[in-house]
């Protein structure tokens, strides 16, 4: 599980170069975004809106890939696929896993500010 990095240092270095003075703002935006997405996911799951679950996971996957959080990307992908093949058992567990991983990522990103 941990042979994949939580954050990609090269990607972040690149982003820092691109964003220049706006880098911190980017990190903040990402963190805010992610919280929103995770809440969205949660709410959808609660009301059994599986389409909503899939879309939220998909969108979250996008921003995570831009930031370079590979493990998060993989978890989102698994969640998406599970919904696609209607494997609805154990979704809640996956969401918990997602939260946990995001905590780790957030922690590491703080170091970049």
């Amino acid at each position, binding site marked *: 599980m941990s042979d994949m990095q939580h954050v990609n240092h090269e*990607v972040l270095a690149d*982003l820092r170069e*691109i*964003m220049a003075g*706006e880098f911190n*703002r*980017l990190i903040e*935006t*990402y963190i*805010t*975004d992610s919280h929103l997405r995770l809440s969205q996911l949660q709410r959808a799951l609660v009301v059994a809106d599986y389409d909503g679950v899939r*879309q939220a996971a*998909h*969108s979250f*996957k*996008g*921003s995570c*890939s*831009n*930031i*370079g959080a590979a493990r998060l990307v993989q978890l989102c992908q698994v969640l998406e696929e599970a919904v696609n093949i209607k494997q609805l058992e154990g979704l809640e567990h996956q969401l918990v896993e997602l939260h946990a991983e995001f905590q780790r990522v957030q922690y590491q990103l703080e170091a970049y500010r």
Partner: protein
Amino acid sequence: MSDIRVIRVLVADDTDTDRLILETIVRQEGHEVLSARNGQEAVELYRQEKPDIILLDALMPVLDGFGAARQIRALAGEELVPIVFLTSLTDTESLVQCLEAGGDDFLSKPYNRVILQAKIKAFYRMRVMHSTLQAQRDQIALHNEHFMQEQVVAKQVFDNITRNGCLDSDNLRYYLSPLAVFNGDVMVAAKNPAGNMVVLLGDFTGHGLPAAIGAMPLATTFYDMVGRGFSASDILADINNTLKSILPVGLFCCAIMVEMNCNKPGMKIWNGGLPAAYIQRSDGQLEKIKSTHLPLGVQGSNDFRADFQRYAMAPGDRLYLWSDGIHEARNTQGEMFGEERLEAVFRQAEVQTSVFDGILNEVKAFVGEGEKSDDLSLIELSMKSPAAIDVAPRTSPSVSARLAQWRFLFAIYPPSFATFDPLPLLLNLVLEVPGLRRHSGSLYTIMSELYSNALEHGVLDLDSSIKTEPEGFDRYYQLRQERSAQATEGYVKISLVHETHPDGGHLTIRVQDSGAGFDSSFTDTHISDYSGRGLHLVQSLCDNCRVLAPGNIVEAEFSWHADD
């Protein structure tokens, strides 16, 4: 739209992070950024700002990327607006969906700045090219329209020149391509003062303006000279020389010219470069008249031969002329209609009158339905019994000319016999008398007969009984040519004397030749007593006609009245 201008990029993504990164990259690459958070905002922003390139996230609330793409495409109309979908989708089906929704390309997350820049640049170049293409297309369409209008005007000029011709005579049937003049085909027909119909069918090389330009001088020369009574050979030589001088090397006019004589029933034909003309006799026999000359406009006046071939014809016989449009009509397999099929139409026609339509129908059937089968030209000339001879000349001399009392003496000596025809000159002189203009046909015939007789029988000593032999006409005219060219002595003297009366006028035509006449016992005699030298026609046209001793002078009197 030039490359110097800043490229304006619309970015639409509902995830703030992604949008922020994309905006920054695009701005850093030197482009202007317009931002939208969902599909609807994107469409609105497009409508207001008309950016150059659209980057659309596939999944967005309110209106997703696919819906936005459709609406933007509709707004763009004919303009090329590149749409690039931003997507984490990787399966082929979803990517196909992007393209079907109107996307031109996709960019996957995570965003790669190098790839993004390459796509922006490439699509912008495409946009510039597209708009250049459209501007050029519009210009071409405009030029085409102008060109078409110019052709219509040029065609009108040509039609005005040919307006007074006799293509509508009842013994002439013709079919002219709708593209005539500009496809090189030209048809002119007129009656000369002797009442003979002269027809010329021409096919200029090339198409469009170069082909049409040759048609104008051809037509004006033709109508002018036919009306003035010039011989067919002179007219043809003149047209050849004009075309030779104005057409550039490589452009020429294949042509057939025909002079139809109803009194001595037959046709004189000259074919330079066109497919063989056919004579169909009333018994169905076909005779082919092949091309025996180079086309018009190729040879200089020294080398050009305007010698016509004479064919005797009876009422009911028909002559068919065509340009190469019939022979060269192609069917869908690329085969040509050719001469055999054309001949077959003649053999298979049930009645002679159905040959003309038969040809057109067969070509149309051969080429096939829906294909163009009308780019051809066809003339059918029927031999009729002698028609009325009195025909007003096409170009009449100035109305204000008033020649009243006058005398004109004209003498012709060798070597002019072979090369000079005095009739146009004499006719034009006589027509300066207003009262004689209505009688131009009769006067032309009288003077023409008298001159021919004087030259042929008096000076050249030709025997008209040769004409009654088989092949006689050819032999006779050949002898006439030879002796005219070889003559070293002799003359024909023509005198015209005109006086006016209170109610009209009187013209005396006297033609004297250097021949011996008859024996010394010959005295002045009235024509009806005198059966030789075929002057009965002349007598029927004038008031009085006598042969004066010793038989080499003929005098004809013609009077006209103011209330004729």
